[in-house]
């Protein structure tokens, strides 16, 4: 298996590249939003592929909670070499996944420094979660929030038609 640090470097460079184009005279919310969407889209496609590859040897998922547990254990284990720290739900389709030391943020600092920069580093992972859920048949909306580096929370809201 390849070293995890390669992914971290690549991810950092991706964010940097997308934000480098943002230095035009109109750095309004419009341009930033596109970059976030691009990152999320990339994460989505990767999530779709991982959602096909990772559960291959596993038995069929019985219910939604099983899928979320799979995300916290197997997906996080495969991508970040650790498991999610906590999973909470209100049993009505909203799940909050908490990671107290998110690998992509851990190198940036700890505490409140760089809090405004943190969201761009979470966009790809939000897409990753959304993509994996979509391959497993669940439509969802994933958002992330950071209170203090490197802890972050991902909120998954299942969209029921």
């Amino acid at each position, binding site marked *: 298996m390849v070293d995890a640090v390669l992914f971290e470097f690549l991810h950092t460079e*991706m964010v940097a590249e997308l934000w480098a184009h943002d230095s035009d005279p109109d750095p309004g919310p419009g341009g930033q939003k596109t970059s976030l969407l691009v990152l999320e889209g990339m994460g989505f496609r990767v999530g779709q592929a991982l959602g096909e590859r990772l559960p291959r040897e596993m038995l069929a998922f019985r219910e939604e909670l099983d899928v979320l547990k799979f995300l916290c254990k197997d997906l996080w284990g495969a991508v970040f070499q650790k498991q999610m720290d906590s999973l909470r739900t209100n049993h009505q389709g909203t799940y909050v996944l908490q990671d107290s030391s998110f690998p992509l943020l851990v190198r940036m600092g700890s505490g409140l420094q760089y809090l405004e920069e943190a969201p761009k580093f979470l966009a790809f992972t939000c897409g990753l979660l959304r993509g994996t859920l979509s391959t497993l048949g669940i439509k969802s909306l994933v958002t992330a929030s950071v209170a203090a580096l490197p802890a972050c929370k991902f909120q998954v809201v299942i969209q029921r038609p």
Partner: protein
Amino acid sequence: MKQPVVGGPEESAGWARAGPPEENYPLYIRSVPTENELKFHYMVHMSLDVVDEKISAMGKALVDQRELYLGLLYPTEDYKVYGYVTNSKVKFVMVVDSSNTALRDNEIRSMFRKLHNSYTDVMCNPFYNPGDRIQSRYWGTIAEPSEGSGIWTGAFWENILLLMPNFVFDIELEWAFDSMVTSMMIQVC
């Protein structure tokens, strides 16, 4: 509906794939000898109903067996139909000639496993958009029913990226960046 790949009368082997349950459209169809193709298509169409039935039965009963392999769906007078469903609700259906009694259950299972593995590889191909018909040549060689005992012949890997070097350089930088990064992500993960 996914069209099945159907083999010829000597050795009918075929399979089909269906997408997400709401849509159930075919991703890949293949017939070896093309006589009676319509009959096989119809058979697989019907067997998708049996597959759906089995899936919902699995969900309701508290069965410990939550296998992906669904087994013999139903035997008709000439043919046997086998099914397999993945965790992402993609269904594979195979139609086999009944006279071919040499095919044992574990051979069918291993055929489905190979198909599942190569379907996973197709999904991971950054040039493939999920939901499109499968056009990869690598997939075609894996999914080819052989003339003999029905055991798939293996095929060596054809790196899709290497096949189209010109294509990669022609497109705009953003799109190339996007897909190359995606494929690298997949490799690294």
